[in-house]
């Protein structure tokens, strides 16, 4: 029966050569060993050659990717890095550094504290905002600059004062009244247009002109 030494020291077989029964048995044994190692059941004792081959197989698997670290392993690695960053202090009894809080514990505490921290800060801001609104003195209204008042004759206005009461006999004499109104408004319009200050006094209707 071939031993491990035989495999390692015997000549290399041809690529197309049929495997021997010993080679098959050894391959099966090593495959079992690799499977157990990947599932975390590494045998306590193994030959030096098998250990060397197993390390090579592990490196090949890691370099080919697809080997996720367990959460515990990840935490352990991060804590080791933090420990080295803090000066390599000795680990405590729980496996963590005395001055370093384990990530899981810190995360759980943060999850508990975060809502209340937000609530506290929000309350403070709300109180400040209420105080600001309460204390803010009303700003005095800015006086609006009115344009200089225009003469009455320039303004559009009711025609009542000019026409006066309409007698029954003149009830249908709208044409004569309109002539009068038109003449009056035309005077005002001309005065406004011909006066130099036409653009500053009064307020053109609808912002035009």
């Amino acid at each position, binding site marked *: 029966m071939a031993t491990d030494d035989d495999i390692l020291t015997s000549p290399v077989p041809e690529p197309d050569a049929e495997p021997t029964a010993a080679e098959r048995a050894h391959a099966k044994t090593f495959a079992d060993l690799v499977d157990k190692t990947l599932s975390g059941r590494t045998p306590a004792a193994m030959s030096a050659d098998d250990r060397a081959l197993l390390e090579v197989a592990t490196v090949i698997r890691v370099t080919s990717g697809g080997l996720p670290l367990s959460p515990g392993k990840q935490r352990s690695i991060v804590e080791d890095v933090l420990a080295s960053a803090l000066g390599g202090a000795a680990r405590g009894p729980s496996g963590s550094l005395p001055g370093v809080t384990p990530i899981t514990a810190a995360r759980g505490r943060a999850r508990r504290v975060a809502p209340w921290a937000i*609530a506290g800060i929000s309350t403070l801001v709300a109180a400040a*905002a209420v105080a600001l609104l309460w204390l803010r003195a009303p700003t005095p209204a800015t006086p609006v600059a009115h344009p200089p008042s225009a003469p009455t004759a320039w303004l559009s206005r009711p025609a009542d004062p000019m026409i006066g009461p309409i007698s029954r006999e003149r009830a249908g004499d709208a*044409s004569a009244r309109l002539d009068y109104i038109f003449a009056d408004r035309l005077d005002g319009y001309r005065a406004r247009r011909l006066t130099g200050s036409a653009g500053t006094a*009064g307020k053109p209707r*609808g912002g035009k002109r």
Partner: protein
Amino acid sequence: MKSRWFARWFVPLGPLAMVLGIVSMGCNESAPQPQEAVTRVAEPGDVIDEDLMVALAQAKNFHHKAKVYMSDGNLADATASVRQILSLRFPAGAPEADDVRLDARALLAKLLVSQGQVEEAMRTVQEGLAQTTRESFFVANLYTVQGEIHEARAAQLDGAGQKTQAIDERRAAIAAYDRSIKINEKLQKQLMERR
């Protein structure tokens, strides 16, 4: 489990919602107000402009046209000419627009009465009174014309032998004249006080 999660996150977040509400209130208060509304009612300070003069000139022309038709005895065309004044576009809020339209309605109603269209005349007057925004001598004049229309109706009812209805129409005519007189008195008093 869900209720614990709700209590843990939503109860403490109440103050945060309050903060956001207060901040939004503050933002609304400090938001710049529009300098001028897009639409506005004309103010007494509005000056006489081209739009008003054009509208007045058109109304004047329609009146003159109607007078020519009336002098020819063509009351139908005179009526149509006066009616066109009602659809003229005046500057928004111009007080002259109300005065000119009310006066045109008064003439239009009288023309319709003279053509026997008493109900149409009454409708014209009532529409004008319904649209009034202030009391004026022109409103008083329209009440006077309304009284005349009631009198015309009473005359028609008398002719038809409907004495009771004719009396009602005469009472309505008196009420319209009274309304006209009251408005005139009130406005004259106001004018006297200003002087």
